[in-house]
């Protein structure tokens, strides 16, 4: 028996079809431009990056330290309470070796995006950033890393004020904290 869907339609166009004028194509570049209000939490976060510090918010009810900071606790649904600084060292939770840029150009040397759990924030509170100053083959989950900052005069108040995170000296995965792994 012939299966469903029977005789499906939809016309595939190859680049040759387009060259031969099988259809007409119209390019258009929209102006999708924004100036987003950072608000209280992100303004402070970005300003502190300029100072070479990572700032978080605490929630007194669930006792968590939240990074990136927010003015509300998403677990307790209440305003967060205090600003606290967390360290610029942390532990790699997961990573990738990426050979493609955001606009799909190939890279010979991979970028190394990672989720890094920051020391001083609550367990599991990571941020996304890049790893650097490390042989890609040697990157491991559990690796201890430290932020490498731009020089103060070059900082603009952006997450890119941290160039990347580099391995802490003398660590392999030895400093891996015990909460890693299955839950």
């Amino acid at each position: 028996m012939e299966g469903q869907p029977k005789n499906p339609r939809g016309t595939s166009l190859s680049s040759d079809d387009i060259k031969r004028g099988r259809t007409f194509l119209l390019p258009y570049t929209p102006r999708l431009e924004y100036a987003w209000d950072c608000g209280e939490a992100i303004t402070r976060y970005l300003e502190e990056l300029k100072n070479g510090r990572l700032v978080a918010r605490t929630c007194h009810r669930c006792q968590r330290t939240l990074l990136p900071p927010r003015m509300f606790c998403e677990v307790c649904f209440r305003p967060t309470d205090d600003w606290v600084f967390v360290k610029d060292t942390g532990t790699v939770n997961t990573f990738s070796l990426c050979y493609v840029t955001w606009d799909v150009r190939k890279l010979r040397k991979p970028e190394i995006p990672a989720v890094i759990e920051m020391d001083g924030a609550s367990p599991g509170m990571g941020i996304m950033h890049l790893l650097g100053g490390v042989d890609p083959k040697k990157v491991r989950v559990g690796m201890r890393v430290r932020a490498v900052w731009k020089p103060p005069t070059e900082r603009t108040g952006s997450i890119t004020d941290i160039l990347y995170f580099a391995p802490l000296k003398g660590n392999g995965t030895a400093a891996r904290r015990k909460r890693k792994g299955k839950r």
Partner: protein
Amino acid sequence: MSNSAEAPRTWRGNIPVTSLYTAGVGGTLFFRALKERGELLASPCPACKVSYFPAQQFCPHCLAELTETKPVPPDGEVSSFTRVHLDRDGARLPVPVTVVAAKLDGTDTVLVHYWLGKEPPRIGTRTRVRIKPKAKRVGSILDIEGFVPA
């Protein structure tokens, strides 16, 4: 940007895409006839007794496939018009642009395009589509220059 942690900040960004549109099945038929033969194609829906111009693949009233196309004459009448004073940046145009919606004879829908007459149009003004010479046609709605007084 202020150094003060108190001053509210904005962060600028964009969505970096370009869109490349196909004319579609109906559009390809329509634009090919326009480009190659200078013809204006409509597609009638026999069930709904509506003639769609420009030609399209299906009837939005009943979802029937429109398999037939027919050329229509370039003559019709103005159903509405507007004088546009602002560009897409919101800036005032040096010369306002007049745009009309006009219904071609024998069709039931309108085409929106530039008004090329010196005098402003009125609703009901008889009009005619002006098509670019063949050498300049590429298969676009701009192969039509606009509407002129009939």
